[in-house]
């Protein structure tokens, strides 16, 4: 007789979110650069912003409250509504 166990896992399976389609070019795209407040991440974003602008994209900078917490839903909505592309920087 098989034992009946209570699983410590939450066994619900969440469907994987498909990746958004990637544009062929950044020309004319609007890119949000998200600073998660990790040490020196802004330096990477500075460089990315320069490269994006040279490639014809417009850019905007946004910042998370703190690197160690998920981004606030309001911030995610703002990014989703305001930019076609997003670059998030992790650094140390």
């Amino acid at each position, binding site marked *: 007789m098989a034992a009946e*166990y209570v699983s410590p896992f939450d066994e619900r399976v969440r469907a994987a979110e498909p*990746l958004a389609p990637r544009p062929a070019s950044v020309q004319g795209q609007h890119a949000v650069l998200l600073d998660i407040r990790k040490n020196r991440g802004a330096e990477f974003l500075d460089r990315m912003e320069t490269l994006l602008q040279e490639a014809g994209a417009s850019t905007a900078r946004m910042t998370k409250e703190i690197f*160690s917490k998920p981004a606030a839903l309001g911030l995610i909505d703002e990014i989703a509504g305001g930019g076609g592309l997003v670059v998030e920087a992790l650094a140390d």
Partner: protein
Amino acid sequence: MADGGDGRGARTDRGAGAGTARGAGGVRGPAPELDVHGTGPGPITVGGLTADGGAVLVFVSEHCPTSALALRRLGPLCQAWAEAGLAAVAIFEDPLDLAIRTARRLGWSGQVAAQEPPYPASRAYRVTTVPTTVLVGRGGLVTGTVTGWDQRALAGLLYEAGRRLGAAIAVPSEAEPLSKPGCSSKAAIDPELAAAMSAHGGGDEPEEMFERGWTDGLPVVPPTAERVEAMLGGRDGGESLGLVPPAMGEATLARVAACAVLAGCRPAYFPVVAAAARAVLDPAFNLHGQAVTTQPAGQLVVVNGPVREAIGLNSGMGALGPGFRANLTIGRAVRLLVSLTGGAMPGVMDRATLGHMGKLGFCIAEDEEVSPWEPLHVERGFEPGQSVVTVIGSDAPLSISDHRSRTPEDLAYILAWAAASAWSTNWWPLTDPSVFVICPEHAQMFRGAGWTKQRLRQFMFDAVRKPAGQLHRGETTAVVHEAAPDAPVPKWASPEAIVLLVAGGEAGRYSAVLGPCTGMGSQIVSREVT
């Protein structure tokens, strides 16, 4: 064998026209419909799987090492296949819950389906060996089959899939073993034997717990329904305490109780475990950051109040060490909740570079009776008669020996400076709490001199300072960078970042400091034990 005498090999209809597709040993022509159940709301159908182009069906069984090999090697490729129009589904000859756990453990990122005895999908595809990999092309025709693990044959099968889709399809790397015979399909053996192979707990229960991944690396107590019921003690197992980051599994009281059983708790400990679970799930504690960080931080559980004696928590000799079931299992239950329900398994979502042994479980009780001061929970606004757990993100303990100080000033200086390298030698000031566990003999010196907790804390805060110019080497803070070279910088941002507890054996002058979990925005959280 389905395909060649050695139980492995592949045949595809490369170059063959539509309608002439054949699967070696298995079915040919139209792919049979799949009588399986999956994890989504709708049925898994051949039409649905091949809607974007094609599908790879991998028939596997949990008990089969070659199946595990196939899932481990093919699993990471599924996402790229999907983007190229090739769906992947692992079809287990096992119950769905076991299938999901096995797939998760082995890194399979495609869909998961399960079939019950008499394994109709395996029979329909004439599977006699697991793993068997079947390629179904556009239009639902079987275009190739590989039995067992055969890297080259699978690469050929996937090349064929790519050719038909007009896309590059990732193939498994040429890592040893390149080939490995499979195991017998449960559909091809005696039904009673197949049932025995599927039964849980039929053999070695502790080993089964490891197989399920219900462990922190040490043996556990299997969480049978009866044990979990006893742990709950009449509480509603469906009550939710919230979501446990980082995987956001729901902490129902039943799952918390399952973790307590796994950890080895007695039912009498469960109120403390539940209170600690509520505390770590308070957003102010920021368990999310602590659970995934590369820092070593564990979750220290401090218990105060009458419950300590009621359940046998040790606050005396060896208070930070082994030997006491209540301390060890309560802390372990909290960690199991984080790593299992919350998904923060080391090397998966727990990214700690080193970790520390306190991450197995980290529960101490304060010796309120020996302490000259108000206990931690009273400091935090509770009544002395209340039982309270307080959780603090903490590094491993560093022992501080001092058998020679004859004044409270000398002792306070020694204790405080021991923490000068907490987090990092030049990282001043610390904003997050350092926890000092003061041993009874050290506490007695402060009692004799009439020092209050506040006085000791202020003295320690004032004592540990360095000119900013001496802190510039390596990793340091913005405060140091912005200060004048001769400006004194304290080790802590405020006296409140120094937490003082009393615990330990009555003989021996060894206190300890536990460095902080740093920069996470984690606050200390307390919850009453009810």
